[in-house]
């Protein structure tokens, strides 16, 4: 499903993915800002405060009532870290007017609602309302603290924190509890102003048509804002390889241990938008045909799960596994052995074909989900990466065995994080 790009104004673009198969239209506002320790928490709080109420919907119950009357229009907020940036997303998804019972007009109203929440917040004297800010702060703090409860998320978070100490990528995507506590209405209002003036903006539409006048109206609103200094979203730094592997061990009252490993990955290939790292990581630890699944889990029974993922933009590969404490060393060695295997060219036709087929099949299905399509286009950061999912599958098919082996050679262990049960 190819997308059309519209220039809204400087540093702001509209992306329209025409797709008539859905019963809904999805519109999202994405604001891209550099992630920094000092501003991460306030930026991350913004989408949540903005979508909880607004000038025209002063309390969240009235807003929720309105959304229900719009046939359960889904208003969502998120703050994600993509490369060295924070992506603040606010979106609405609404069913088509033709499905209403009494001929109500839903799409345009839902889009107006979203626009008004983003651009007309509930604020007085350059300050957000105390009650709204405090409510969302409490929820944010509970959310950040809650990550500790799910040890898989916690362990991955700790790995990234240790691996990128003093670097932007090491900043947690929603900031720290201490930073959230410091936020007040004035500070958040300033963050909102900053978001409007300096963020790179992408407005994505997935559906049958672009709601009439949407991009023009945004362009008009942005024209009243001084947008001279806009975030350049192409400056994510790659991961440096480590001189010495950093190993961190923690103990907690758990039954199952977690072994998480972080690797630096040198980019390989002439064309920057290639799929080399994606395929290499998939063969290493992606699908059930991967080396980690079929050997470390199935043959050696060393962990219930053991999988690898890569983040190309950051030159990062991670491996996550759930292990028994007594097997920690064995599992770590087995995982590294599999990587060594790949580096040594130990790559069967079966592994190679399975991976290419598996990745292609799964990327092709993105077209059947409006959320997947939206996320796909929200994370294309450079012009040459701005291709449709189908188009990208051609890059996947172009990856050769040689590319994989060379890419694997550039993957080096950087940091190990081990969470173990308390010693008795």
């Amino acid at each position, binding site marked *: 499903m190819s997308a059309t790009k519209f220039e809204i104004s400087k540093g702001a673009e509209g992306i329209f993915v025409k797709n008539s198969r859905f*019963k809904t239209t999805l519109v999202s506002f994405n604001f891209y800002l550099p992630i920094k320790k000092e501003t991460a928490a306030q930026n991350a709080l913004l989408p949540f405060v903005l979508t909880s109420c607004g000038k025209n919907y002063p309390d969240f119950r009235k807003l929720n009532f309105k959304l*229900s009357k719009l046939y359960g229009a889904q208003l969502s907020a998120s703050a994600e870290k993509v490369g060295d940036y924070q992506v603040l997303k606010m979106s609405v998804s609404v*069913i088509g007017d033709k499905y209403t019972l009494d001929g109500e007009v839903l799409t345009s109203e839902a889009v107006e609602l979203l626009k008004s929440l983003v651009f007309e917040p509930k604020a007085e004297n350059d300050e957000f309302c105390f009650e709204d800010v405090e409510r969302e702060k409490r929820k944010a703090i509970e959310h950040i603290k809650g990550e500790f409860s799910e040890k898989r998320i916690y362990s991955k978070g700790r790995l990234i924190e240790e691996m990128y100490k003093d670097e932007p990528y090491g900043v947690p995507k929603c900031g720290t509890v201490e930073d959230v506590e410091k936020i007040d209405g004035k500070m958040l209002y300033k963050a909102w102003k900053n978001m409007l003036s300096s963020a790179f903006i992408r407005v994505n539409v997935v559906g049958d048509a672009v709601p009439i006048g949407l991009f023009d109206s945004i362009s008009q609103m942005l024209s009243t804002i001084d947008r001279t200094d806009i975030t350049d979203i192409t400056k994510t730094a790659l991961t440096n390889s480590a001189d010495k592997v950093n190993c961190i061990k923690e103990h907690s009252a758990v039954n*199952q241990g977690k072994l998480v490993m972080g690797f630096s990955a040198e980019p390989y290939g002439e064309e920057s938008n290639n799929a080399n790292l994606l395929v290499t990581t998939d063969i290493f630890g992606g*699908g059930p*045909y991967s080396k980690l699944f079929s050997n470390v889990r199935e043959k050696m029974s060393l962990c219930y799960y053991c999988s690898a993922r890569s983040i190309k933009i950051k030159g990062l590969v991670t491996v996550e596994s759930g292990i*028994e404490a007594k097997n920690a060393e064995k599992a770590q060695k087995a995982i590294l052995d599999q990587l060594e295997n790949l580096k040594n060219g130990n790559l069967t036709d079966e592994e190679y074909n399975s991976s290419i087929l598996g990745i292609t099949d799964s990327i092709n299905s993105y*077209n059947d989900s409006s959320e997947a399509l939206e996320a796909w286009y929200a994370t294309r950061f450079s012009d040459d990466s701005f291709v449709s999912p189908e188009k990208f599958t051609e890059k996947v098919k172009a990856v050769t065995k040689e590319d994989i082996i060379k890419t694997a050679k550039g993957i080096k262990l950087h940091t190990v994080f081990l969470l173990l049960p308390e010693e008795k």
Partner: protein
Amino acid sequence: MKREIFESPINESYVKAVCSSGVTVYVCEKPQYKSTYAIFGTKYGSIDNCFSVNGGEKQKVPDGIAHYLEHKLFESEDGDAFSRFAKTGASANAFTSFDRTCYLFSCSDKVYENLEILLDFVRHPYFTEETVRKEQGIIGQEIRMYDDSPSWRVTFNMLENMYHNHPVKIDIAGTTESIAKINADLLYDCYNTFYNPKNMFICIVGNVDTEKVLSMCEKTVTGNGDTEITRIFEDEPQTVVKNYVEQKLSVSNPMFCLGFKQNISSPLRRLKSKVCVALLLEIICGECSPLYERLIKEGLINDEFSFEYFNGFDYACPMFEGESENPKAVADAIKAEIKNLRENGIDKKLFSAVKCGMYGDAIRRFNSVSEICMQLTEGAVYDFDIFEEIKLLKTVTCDDVYKRLDVFDDELSVLSVINPLE
């Protein structure tokens, strides 16, 4: 082949057909879509630990055996099912829940090849004492992973204290002790009982041709006799074990699960009751309700808060879950709101907003091949038409919903809490 066509006002339809083997097949064509999602399932889950076949003797099997069988079925003499799907590019998986075991694939190419693999591996069990023993390590790891998961524990602690005897209280994967008793003979016994076509269903949604799917199912899935299975449950007292249960785990925020045991006179709920209770839950504490607003403002719940009408064969309980500094205060507030609704009735405006929202949600689900397939699966297990909900939501009245307040009885409530370690 006996077949029925189901139509809807939202431009969707599907076919339900019963093959000569007895297996029921549901096909929903989505020609605009690239992908397909398919499930081959059996009405056999963790609650089926005691049963009789063709009116014979009662058989008791170890807890967790349905789930164990799910793991083993992926293997065959010449490699596992994963490696067969690896050749087509499909992504395959399986899950066991309280009342069903499902094997599935999703793909955007080679759909009939994938269907052939699915239909084949589920019908050809292959395991030996050795391969069965080997699985104990991996399943043991899985059990330990769930033991560490506070969101899993909080629900099961609630169920364990709600039910005296009903097997819904048992962990789906069983325990390290119970799975140690599982051997190849037992697995074959259970397989032959529950994986007979009459007890099974196939649901497929996406870019497929109905006739082709039906003829494949008719040809490949062959019968293995007329097995009548009777689930045997011990009598369940109309009380709960304990109203309050607490466990300490490595968490930062306390978590809770509040359930209300519903006294039921027959094993199954009608779809209309399910829809009415779902609406009622929204009215009690959905995002439009006064109670939700108050709980958020008082700092008692956060975005983790959720609720559902948990129900299946011979069990039913509305359930509320979330994180809270003060779970008891949340539980009291929910009970007080139920009392308030009983005494003062339901706000008509709130009812109409909630109904409208739920109608939209029901339509939205038809965006996704996997969601439609999951709904068909639910329809297959509990024998209803998946378009019925949309029709019911048009006609259901505030009074219908008010009447369902009878599912709540404070005496039969259980509050389960996970507290942080000191």
